């Protein structure tokens, strides 16, 4: 498996692209992903063994029982002995797969109970981060409900920040998965198997890892035009870093005097119908929360790097970048666009 990844990496590096992110299911970074990976390797091994035996018999039969030209010409019409069947043999090869199935069911059951096990804590217990994840066409909303027993109350988009366990203290994260429109599926291969976000249904998924870093994933259930651009970035931070991030996110939006005009422009346009910027009159809850927009590295369902140039392109005409997305091109003047982007750039 690592050879496969290495080969892919090599071709991409040769092309001079950005570094490759590992999203393989065989590079687990959490206990749960790890137990799935080891079960997977076991099942692959069993399948591989069956493959070798059966293809071996097939290949042997083809080679061994294909009459040579001499045989064909010497006795063109002889039929081989006709064997109609044999009950002992049939029973033998009914029992053999049954034993394998029995074995597979046992190991599956064990892993199933390991992987789906909720930690003993409740959602607002000490050390637990409780988040509601809402799948939307075509981005993810993360509503932070509580952490370590403290109520939170902010939402962010596209990038999920969670703490890593450290020093023997686990930091379980409880994700409550919902959908605002159609079916989606939350999937970060290195952290956890996928779990669907289905409208009218609430699912729960626990994440827990001890390894800080950036983990990528994306929506895994077809959800419409831009399904391909409904990406997931999970930033796992040390508890200290995470506290710092939380503190910043909990504050209302910065009121930068340099961007007063841009702020006024944005608040007077229809942006406020969908977007929320805490501390202002923008209180929409239909589109990504922009309160701390600039604390993210990406936007637009994590498809674009967050910089002024991309923001400017996006504000001008989102449809030319993410065709079909729910934000229309508002036809603002260049001046207004500049002002809005200047204001957005202050939202750290």
């Amino acid at each position: 498996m690592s050879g496969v990844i290495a080969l892919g990496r090599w071709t991409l590096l040769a092309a001079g692209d950005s570094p490759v992110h590992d999203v393989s299911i065989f590079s687990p970074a959490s206990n749960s992903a790890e137990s799935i990976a080891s079960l997977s390797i076991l099942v692959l091994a069993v399948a591989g063994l069956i493959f070798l035996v059966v293809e071996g018999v097939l290949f042997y039969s083809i080679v061994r029982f294909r009459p040579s030209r001499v045989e064909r010409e010497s006795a063109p019409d002889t039929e081989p002995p006709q064997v109609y069947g044999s009950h002992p043999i049939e029973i033998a090869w009914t029992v053999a797969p049954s034993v394998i199935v029995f074995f597979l069911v046992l190991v599956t059951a064990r892993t199933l109970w390991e992987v789906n096990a909720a930690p003993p804590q409740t959602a607002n217990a000490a050390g637990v981060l409780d988040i509601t994840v809402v799948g939307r066409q075509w981005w993810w909303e993360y509503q932070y409900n509580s952490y370590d027993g403290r109520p939170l109350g902010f939402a962010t988009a596209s990038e999920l920040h969670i703490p890593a366990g450290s020093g023997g203290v686990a930091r379980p994260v409880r994700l409550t998965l919902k959908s605002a429109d159609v079916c989606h599926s939350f999937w970060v291969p290195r952290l956890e198997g996928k779990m669907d976000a289905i409208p009218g249904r609430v699912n729960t998924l626990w994440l827990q890892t001890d390894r800080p870093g950036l983990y990528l994933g994306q929506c895994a259930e077809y959800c419409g035009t831009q399904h391909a651009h409904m990406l997931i970035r999970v930033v796992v931070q040390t508890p200290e870093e995470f506290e710092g991030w939380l503190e910043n996110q909990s504050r209302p939006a910065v009121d930068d005097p340099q961007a007063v005009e841009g702020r006024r422009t944005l608040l007077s346009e229809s942006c406020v119908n969908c977007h929320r910027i805490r501390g202002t009159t923008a209180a929409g809850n239909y589109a990504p929360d922009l309160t701390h927009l600039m604390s993210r590295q990406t936007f637009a369902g994590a498809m674009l790097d967050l910089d002024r140039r991309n923001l400017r392109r996006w504000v001008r005409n989102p449809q030319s970048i993410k065709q079909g997305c729910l934000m229309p091109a508002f036809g603002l003047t260049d001046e207004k666009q500049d002002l809005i982007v200047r204001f957005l750039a202050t939202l750290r």
Partner: protein
Amino acid sequence: MAVADERGGFQREPAGASAAGRPAIVSALHEWTTTVDHKKLGIMYVAMAIFFLVVGGCEALLMRLQLVVPNNDLVGPDTFNQLFTMHGTTMVFFVGMPILIGMANYLVPLMIGARDMAFPRLNALGFWTTLFGGLLVYFSFATGGAPAMGWFAYAPLTETTFARSAATDFWALGLVTSGVGSIAAGVNFIATILGMRAPGMTMTKIPFFAWTMLWTSVQLLVAIPPLTAGLIMVLFDRQLGAHFFDVQNGGSAYFWQHLFWFFGHPEVYILILPVFGMVSEVIPVFSRKVLFGYEFMAAATMAIALISLGVWAHHMYCVGMSRTLDLYFVVASLLVSIPTGIKFFNWLATMFGGRISFASPMLFSVGFLSMFLIGGLTGIMLAVAPFDFQLSDTYFVVGHFHWVLIGGTLFGVFAGIHYWYPKVTGRMLSERLAWWQFWLLYLGFLLTFGPMHLSGMLGMPRRIFTYQPDRAWEIWNQLSTLGAFIQAPSYAIFVYNVVASLSNGKPAGDDPWDAWTLEWSTTSPPPSYNFEVIPTVHSRRPLWDLKHPDDPDWQYE
């Protein structure tokens, strides 16, 4: 039955029609459109399927081109989503089912010594509704674009909110219509196989293909109506303002998933059981041995047909069912592998100790055996729920089911077509072209779908119109695309071979393969009444008994 034949009017000679003042083409058209002969209907089913195979194949090639590099904008998201929706719908409903139903239509009456299907006119109705269903689905393009919700059309993507154009309505109507055709075929096969066997052909002596068709028909009858009901609910939601899948008013998106997969999983077996039957006819003849363990094979077929009705939610491990329910579906799904294994071992045992010759039907059958095994094994991986939490909805799944549907169904169908083409046309297919077709398909197929398993395990979800350049998926997609373009000419060779051999092929004679079932006892092509005299049967291999009167099969069965 002969009465119905005459009423159908296909016995009129073209010469007679020209005498009535009609050009030959018109009378031929008239003959084919008004026929109720199971053989002509079978040929039309297969021709329809091959036509849609080419259409669906072109859709696949466009998708492969779009995915050849990351962030490609060759076709764009809307077109791509329409392409995979139509590709899936086409291949399942208008290629897979018609080609199998068509071949069975042609062969089952001949194999069981009947003069036609039980209900010839219903048979014609079934074909035409299937065809018009396909046309109706394609008519959705006329609304400005085909539906873009995937072939399993997860609610609420089918609701008016998310699919405003009438494309979805055409799609649903088309599938309801062709569903009527499938039910008609199922009813007809059951009535024919149970009620019209030649004297002496008891249920334990019917050809294995007829046995698999019987169980396929049972699955058609049980699995298609829930889909029809579901599609009607979709139409009611869209046209009458009903609320089945309208989540805002208490409807359920989750309910559609259960409905769809209750149909969808048996559908997979509808597409593979007849193929099991075909290779069970081909392998014995080209190994020169009787099918090993007929009774166990028959029981295994029955077991697969019945168990597969209870495994549907293994497509839904990620919807958040309880662990107990997950485990039930793991057990049920893995159980299917036992009868499938029995079948596999019996085919191997049939070949073992035989005198194998590699004419094209056997070539494709061995291709089937070697590839279907892999599809079955990846199926076991997907049945293991925790593994599926990772693999579900990735390219691994795409690789898996193409492995089953091409490596299994299509290789088996090609084996069958190469085997029975001489019976249908009186001409042999070119073995040289068949050899090229086989190897291009085999290698192209490996190259297309092998890498998909890898990209899936590397985290690539299915149904994405493009992907990020930093995910290490590029090389695998490029190999897949290359494979697709290696496969493409093999289909062209096949179509050319089928058409050209009509006039160029070597004359076949009645029994070119020295085979053992009843269809080889009549002329090639068979007369409209199939048999001058209805044969009497004493064993599963009536022609073996005839060819070896000193050592007939009925002594051993």
